């Protein structure tokens, strides 16, 4: 179903690209199709990394397995294990969708081995920052025993304001501010510089990577303390097996 849904989304933007949106005015030399396929692929995987920890935890609470899980796992292990599993599964559907796009729609990316390594490092950084955000949302779920709906909100915000299907150069005022506080903006900007530009902008990639590392470190530490505090609170008030 996910592969089908990803394909439907890609086909929709394929037909939109036939309206010939001009990206050169935003300083992007690639075609719209190449630009949005890169964004959509990343967004599909990041969506999984964002929702996995929080979503799985909510399911554990509802189905009553959360209390057993606390006895057997450390939350960080649980978060990392779930994210890797989710991201690997999501990547399969994205790779299939991209291969079909490559074969039938004419979206090409010419990437060297060095660039591929850079993409991989950036991908890991983006993934870690979103896992940290998901852990913060999980702490709210543990504390309130309710699904806050924040994951779907952040997913929608990331899809809209980080330059997934249109360049962030279109944004002004508050939407631009929103885009600057979302980690995917920095990751995607760096990836677009590698995969879509003729020459790699090292200053931009380095700058954005540092921003991603700082965001991940701050959110990671905050999430670790928040989750532990929520677990302690839920144990103290006997809410672990309660929904």
């Amino acid at each position, binding site marked *: 179903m996910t592969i089908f849904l990803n394909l439907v989304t890609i086909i929709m933007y394929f*037909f939109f690209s036939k*309206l010939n949106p001009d990206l050169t005015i935003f300083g992007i030399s690639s075609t719209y199709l190449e630009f949005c396929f890169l964004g959509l692929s990343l967004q599909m995987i990041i969506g999984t990394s964002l929702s996995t920890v929080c979503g799985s935890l909510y399911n554990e609470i509802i189905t009553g397995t959360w209390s057993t899980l606390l006895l057997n796992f450390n939350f960080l292990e649980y978060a990392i294990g779930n994210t890797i599993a989710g991201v690997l599964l999501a990547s399969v559907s994205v790779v299939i969708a991209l291969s079909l796009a490559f074969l039938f729609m004419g979206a090409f990316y010419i990437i060297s081995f060095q660039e591929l390594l850079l993409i991989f490092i950036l991908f890991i950084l983006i993934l870690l920052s979103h896992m940290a955000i998901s852990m913060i949302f999980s702490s709210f779920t543990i504390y309130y025993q309710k699904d806050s709906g924040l994951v*779907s909100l952040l997913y929608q915000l990331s899809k809209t304001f980080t330059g997934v299907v249109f360049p962030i150069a279109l944004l002004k005022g508050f939407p631009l501010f929103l885009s600057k506080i979302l980690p995917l903006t920095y990751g995607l900007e760096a990836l677009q510089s590698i995969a879509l530009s003729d020459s790699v902008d090292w200053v931009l990639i380095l700058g954005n990577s540092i921003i991603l590392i700082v965001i991940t470190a701050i959110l990671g530490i905050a999430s670790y303390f928040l989750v532990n505090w929520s677990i302690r609170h839920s144990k103290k008030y006997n809410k672990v097996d309660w929904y």
Partner: protein
Amino acid sequence: MSVEKTAKVINQFSSSEKTISFIVGFRATFSRNLKIIWQYKFSLLIGFVNTFTVACLFYYIANLVPNQLISQDGYSVNSVPFIFAGSMLVDISTRILMKAMNSFTSEIRQGTFETLATQPFGLKKYFFSEITFEVLYGLFFSLIYYIPVLLIFPIFRGIKVDVVSVISFLLLLVFVFLFFFSLSLLAANITILVKRGREISMVIIGVLHLLSGTLFPLSLFPNWLRIIAYFSPMTLAVQAFRLCLFGNGTIGDFSVWMSILILAVTSLIILLLFNLTYKKIYKRIRSKGTIHEY
């Protein structure tokens, strides 16, 4: 429990005889759901931000082709209102479907569906009242959320629509929502069998968005895909919606009356399908013992 007794219990929930009246049960479902929503007050605020974000997405995508004039059904309009109008209609309609599916999925996951289904109220009445609530709730809040969004993005400012077009437009909307009501009923029925409500609704929403040409005119489709697109009732509905809004279309125009007719007929067929299948599906999940599974 013996087979006879099980059959008696099944008969009790599936028959409306000796059960409470529809109005009483309907009121109870409404009151219960309102209490649940009140517990999730925060999600009402998130709903607005979500609507605003979706509207932003379509607004900015449309602004990638800001100077294109799109001609369809005898009118010409700028691509920004064209894309925004189609996307808004599909977004509101599919939000209703999503709410209904999420509600059933949530009942199944939390194990409350089993209890609700065996109430003396009757399964069919429960389905109707639950979906009616979700449709009205989804519709009410979508419209409330879109008012500030339309004030932020004054896309339709300057568009003059005459009274007959407004009436035709409202009539069309009624049938669009009737279609989504029936679709939600049938999809909810399938959800209790396959237990994948969210996925089912996501696929339906994706296909409807693609086929109804929300982001582009249907003339960009190859012929074979355009033929397939017209099998979706929402394709003609979006076309008629845009015609009423930008081309002063009325009920006398082919695409408007045809759209209303197709929506009405499709809704009727879906309701009949629901009526034919709901008992069979319920019996099947009971006999397989999967009612409480997710």
